[in-house]
């Protein structure tokens, strides 16, 4: 089994060797991730080893989920105990093509949940959310325990409770 270290992205990491096959994900990792992290917009966690360089990565950002105020006014009787809840967004996730199909992606999601849970003890946050771009990805997240927010799934936004 492959052995890697999970750590925050730095300029020293060799990100160019990680090619996921998704041009948008690759573009983000190769050119934008470090700058975005430097601006505090996302934490970029990389799975890496000295021999292989960066094999995969994911990003985490704070996320607030709030009930639509207009709708709440219309319904008036929703009886919701809260109007807003804080958590984390698993924004981007990618694994190098040579290491796909070996469970690294699912292991990275598991790490993202572990980090979010650790943050929860010090900074709060009650969920990890994803916004899959395809129904196939949504099905994969569902197998990992993420639940869709919208029953008819017109949008694919999903959450994983941090318990």
């Amino acid at each position, binding site marked *: *089994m*492959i*052995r*890697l*270290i*999970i*750590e925050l992205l730095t300029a020293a990491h060799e990100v160019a060797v990680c090619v996921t096959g998704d041009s948008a994900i690759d573009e983000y990792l190769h050119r934008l991730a470090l*700058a975005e992290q430097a*601006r*505090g*917009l996302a934490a970029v966690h990389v*799975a890496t080893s000295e021999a292989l360089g960066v094999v995969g990565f994911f990003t985490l*950002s*704070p*996320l*607030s*989920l*709030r*009930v*639509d105020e207009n*709708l*709440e006014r219309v*319904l008036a009787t*929703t009886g*919701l*105990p*809260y109007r807003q*809840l804080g958590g984390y*967004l698993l924004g981007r996730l990618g694994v190098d093509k040579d290491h796909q199909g070996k*469970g*690294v992606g*699912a*292991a*990275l*999601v*598991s*790490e993202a*949940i*572990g*980090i979010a*849970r*650790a943050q929860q003890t010090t900074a709060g946050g*009650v*969920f990890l*959310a994803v916004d899959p771009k395809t129904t196939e990805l949504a099905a994969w997240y569902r*197998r*990992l*325990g993420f*639940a*869709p*927010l*919208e*029953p008819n799934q017109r949008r694919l*936004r999903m*959450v994983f*409770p941090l*318990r």
Partner: protein
Amino acid sequence: MKPRRRPVIASTTATPYLDLKADERQELRLPALLKDHIARVAAQQGSSVSEYMLRVLAADVSVEIAKPIEWHLSAPEFKVLLDLLKNPPPETKYMAAARARAKKIFGASSHVR
């Protein structure tokens, strides 16, 4: 008389974008009137259209991108969320396997408990 060109002065928040190499292209369709007005305002400010649009966009984006991410949910979606938090589903077999694998792959650096 051709307007005197002056250097683009970026706002503090926009500067990080304007310091970067502008090596990407973006095509867009826009109303002819807006296109004309952009050119006029840019000229009034002594900028090229590209300089002007970059400056305006960078200033706006740098403010918006720094705002905390928010998802606005419908009341039914929010109820789904609250129900999930109140009654979290049991761990799936797939997630249990992923957790075990993460511990093995990432060893001491793993955050999985």
